[in-house]
């Protein structure tokens, strides 16, 4: 009986803390300079057109644009672009898009030398796990800071590549 009351009190106390947290978080979010909408909107992926892709275009028009899986295949087959895999080394070892180079964003400072060797106007496509991962976006931001001018995303990432049953490379 006493144990039941203690459990009930514990739950009541926990609920009170949660209610206070709800109130404080909502009030803070109203006045915070970094407030976010309560309901997240679904990110729209903006794909680049074939015409745009194979022209010499620069940073401003490319920002946040993505290539489709078909365009990705063309780029790999024709070796028109350098493909960067932003996931960690283990994920890359288990399987990656053919010819992709691993630049794990979470360890990016150890890979700066490798990035320095790439000419700044090379067409680069970055990818990570899938639509929801952010590593490729962070990597492309980082590389823009290094004055790379032609960076695209492969928004579907490794997941979409696998889904399309396309060949993968593994490293031991």
């Amino acid at each position, binding site marked *: 009986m006493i144990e039941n009351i*203690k459990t009930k009190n514990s739950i009541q*106390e926990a*609920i009170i*803390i949660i209610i206070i947290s709800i109130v404080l*978080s909502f009030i803070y979010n109203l006045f915070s300079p*970094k407030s976010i909408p309560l309901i997240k909107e679904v990110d729209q992926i903006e794909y680049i057109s074939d015409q745009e892709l194979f022209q010499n275009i620069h940073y401003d028009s490319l920002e946040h644009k993505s290539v489709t899986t078909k365009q990705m295949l063309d780029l790999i087959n024709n070796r028109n672009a350098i493909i960067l895999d932003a996931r960690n080394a283990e994920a890359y070892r288990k399987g990656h898009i053919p010819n992709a180079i691993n630049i*794990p964003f*979470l360890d990016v400072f150890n890979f700066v030398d490798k990035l320095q060797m790439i000419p700044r106007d090379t067409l680069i496509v970055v990818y990570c*796990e899938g639509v*929801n991962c952010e590593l490729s976006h962070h990597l492309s931001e980082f590389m823009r800071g290094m004055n790379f001018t032609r960076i695209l995303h492969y928004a579907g990432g490794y997941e979409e590549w696998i889904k399309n049953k396309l060949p993968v490379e593994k490293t031991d």
Partner: protein
Amino acid sequence: MKKFLFYIFRYFIGIVFIIAAIPKIEDPAAFAKSIEGYQFLPTFLINITALLIPWIELLVGISIIIGFFLRGTSLLAIILFSSFSILIGISLLRGLSIDCGCFGNLGSPLTYSRLIEDLILLLFSTYVYHIARKSV
């Protein structure tokens, strides 16, 4: 000894929660992105979770140190650490290569050591809850 551990664990959990909460409260958008990386919540719940979790962490952190609502806060600590452990465990098994988001800051990859840390904190919280229930 029991009392000593009770206090040490409380302060430890409290400090961890406060340190984890502040950067997430400051930059909820970054935390929302970390949550999104785990691919377990529907899109419409991501921002609400990103706003709410850090405040629960902060309040639990402060309350567990000052001894306010100790049973409730230690129970919440158990719930939080269990949820984090399960989530991290599943994500590691799925082979997700993502940012942990544990302390809000970018650049801490999700690893098995994070899971072990959470499980240790879960153990501490369970101890605090057990003593708090007895003594109050």
